[in-house]
């Protein structure tokens, strides 16, 4: 940092979080005392801690991510590297990070014993928060860049400078209030995800008790009717927390605009983010790759006793079908999501329908577990025959809304700017509508279309809950198997699955190397 955060700004930041946490603790206590009909569920051991842990994680991630993202340079630089960072499979990344930095991890062994600390440990609140931040900050940077691209912010900065403010101060006073308003949706998505994430929580969060979403899944997977009832209550609580999350984003925005921004002066976070994120990402990848071929890597040794690919060879017969299956499911889901969003966007153009964004983004604004549990009831009759293709179809269908939401986030702003008269012109030459679309819009929007497809595939590839709840045990993916093996103690096996997941993500990223045709300057 080049300048210190003025003290008034720091006080405001503390004030931002405190009321929420106090209100929540008080609310849970009151609720447990007064609501009798829910008493078996409300008296479940550790419920209040689970909810508190969930909310602390959500609010902390939102707050820290907001501060880091909005006050740092990547927001105003090119987005090429960010796409690659976001493409990192977050489970594999989490495993790599824990193996590097957690106690008894690889880099931990380099630290003198006197400095050893267990702040960043496996299955601990802080580690969970840090891993979520590492995942969400690049996503918010990318969303911020795309939002900025739609604002004449450089001209606003010039106006500010012509009025005598510094460039940085003009940024806080003129650009940031509008940017914050436009970033509501991505911030809500981050908050809701942090409240309800299960797969990362299983690996990184404390489990005694676990975050609420993890417990809800455990209740749901328990065949007892009472547990399933608990799961329903838990899912509704997650939904309620998502509503509160929306309010939290509004409140945060108002407070930042009213109290923080006027006092930020020339403050800016000047951290070499690109280098930092790239180094950590590469280190995590290298660490799990090394672990996947390490034999006898005991503490406190810096290197294993030997290297061998024997375990890879043993696992190959299991891994290959999983790799192909994961890639296949992701490719089908991504293609269906892309087609679905393109159809909806053209339908919106033709009929001038508004409010499409709300419906398409809803799956990201509602806790995934809540939605999936509701859909499970809907699909129960369809999958009851036990036929594998029915499970596959259900699995693909329930993933489409989540991938489609990301496709929409990436594609919609560019599609909206697209000059639709290109299509009209092609139609005047005698081509049908979709042929005209293919000849002009597809080629002019090729890069965003490819990026949206890749994102959709990566989102699908990383899905855990749909596989567990809809795969019926017949359809597994690298992600579901990675979570399964992570509960064991065989670190080499865990690393092998994590590396495989990473390789699959890289495979999808290669699609982006497709030759670029679009000349964006010619679009409206």
């Amino acid at each position, binding site marked *: 940092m080049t300048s210190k955060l003025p003290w008034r700004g720091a006080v405001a930041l503390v004030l931002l979080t405190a009321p929420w946490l106090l209100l929540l603790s008080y609310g849970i206590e009151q609720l447990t005392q007064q609501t009798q009909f829910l008493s078996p569920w409300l008296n479940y051991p550790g419920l209040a801690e689970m909810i508190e842990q969930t909310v602390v994680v959500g609010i902390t991630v939102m707050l820290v991510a907001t501060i880091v993202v909005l006050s740092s340079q990547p927001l105003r630089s090119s987005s090429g590297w960010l796409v690659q960072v976001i493409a990192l499979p977050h489970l594999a990344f989490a495993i790599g990070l824990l193996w590097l930095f957690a106690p008894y991890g690889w880099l931990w062994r380099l630290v003198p014993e006197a400095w050893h600390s267990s702040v960043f440990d496996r299955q601990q609140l802080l580690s969970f928060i840090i891993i979520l931040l590492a995942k969400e900050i690049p996503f918010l940077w990318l969303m911020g860049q795309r939002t900025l691209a739609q604002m004449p912010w450089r001209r606003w900065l010039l106006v500010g400078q012509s009025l005598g403010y510094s460039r940085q101060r003009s940024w806080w006073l003129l650009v940031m209030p509008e940017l914050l308003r436009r970033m509501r949706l991505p911030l809500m998505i981050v908050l809701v995800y942090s409240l309800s994430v299960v797969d990362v929580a299983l690996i990184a969060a404390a489990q005694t008790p676990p975050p609420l979403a993890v417990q809800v899944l455990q209740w749901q997977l328990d065949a007892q009717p009472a547990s399933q009832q608990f799961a329903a209550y838990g899912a509704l609580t997650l939904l309620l927390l998502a509503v509160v999350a929306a309010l939290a984003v509004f409140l945060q925005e108002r407070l930042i605009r009213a109290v923080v921004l006027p006092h930020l002066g020339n403050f800016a976070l000047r951290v070499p983010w690109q280098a930092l994120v790239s180094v950590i990402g590469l280190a995590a990848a290298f660490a799990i790759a090394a672990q996947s071929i390490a034999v006898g890597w005991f503490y406190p040794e810096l290197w294993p006793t030997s290297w061998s690919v024997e375990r890879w060879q043993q696992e190959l017969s299991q891994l290959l079908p999983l790799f192909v299956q994961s890639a296949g499911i992701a490719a089908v889901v991504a293609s269906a999501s892309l087609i679905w969003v393109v159809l909806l966007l053209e339908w919106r153009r033709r009929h*001038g329908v508004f409010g499409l964004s709300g419906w398409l983004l809803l799956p990201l604004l509602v806790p995934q577990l809540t939605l999936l549990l509701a859909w499970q009831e809907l699909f129960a009759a369809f999958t009851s025959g036990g036929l594998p293709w029915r499970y596959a179809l259900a699995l693909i269908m329930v993933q489409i809304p989540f991938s489609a939401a990301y496709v929409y986030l990436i594609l919609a702003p560019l599609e909206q700017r697209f*000059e639709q008269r290109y299509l*009209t012109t092609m139609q*005047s*030459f005698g081509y049908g509508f979709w042929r005209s679309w293919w000849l002009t819009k597809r080629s*002019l929007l090729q890069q965003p279309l490819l990026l949206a497809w890749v994102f959709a595939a990566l989102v699908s590839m990383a899905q855990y809950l749909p596989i567990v709840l809809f795969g019926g045990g017949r359809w597994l993916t690298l992600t579901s198997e990675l979570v399964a093996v992570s509960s064991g103690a065989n670190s080499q096996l865990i690393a092998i699955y994590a590396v495989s997941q990473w390789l699959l993500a890289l495979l999808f990223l290669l699609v982006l190397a497709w030759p670029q045709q679009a000349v964006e300057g010619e679009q409206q």
Partner: protein
Amino acid sequence: MSTTQLRLSAAQLQLAGQQVNLPELSLGCGEILAVIGPSGCGKSSWLRWLLGDQQSHMQVNGRIELSGTDISTWPIEQRGIGIVWQDFLLVPHLSVQENLRLALPKALRSQSRQAQQQVIFERLQQVELGDLAQQPVTALSGGQRARIALLRALINEPRLVLLDEPFAALDSQLRQRIRQWTFATLAQTATSAIIVSHDSADFPAGCSQLHWPQGANYD
């Protein structure tokens, strides 16, 4: 001049709560109709309605007859009407030749690439733009873009061409030259055209003129 190519029954436009009544219009083969009116009065939207692209912010009712056939409900691709936009809208990542190839009439699209190139080259030669065939359209000057845009519309052999403020993006000197070239080319190909502009200097001498009906609040 010749047989009636286009006949428009009295059309009604609903725009921002205002109603505009247009008189009955007819246009012979190779004739040009000039439509003049202030900016924002709905001329361009009306032109797009003729093309078959009904705009959601404006309701237009009326009957369009082209070569004696009622095409009011036909989709854009079946009408045989071409358009040249004010900003030309050449496909930016393609060359001049590729832009023109996209616009070849259906009968030519099934022919060999060589035959297509021959037609395109001949048409470019006719208007003395043969040396531009391989150029990316982004490398063209404003005047060259204007000419390629008109050529692209004409190479499709439409029954009617709509010109939506086609000279507005050009500077005054170039504007005069391109104007003359455009009307000479239209006359050469005997193509009927409707040209919309807010500047009466854009119209050729002696053409039919429609002054956009007054009475509506154009703001």
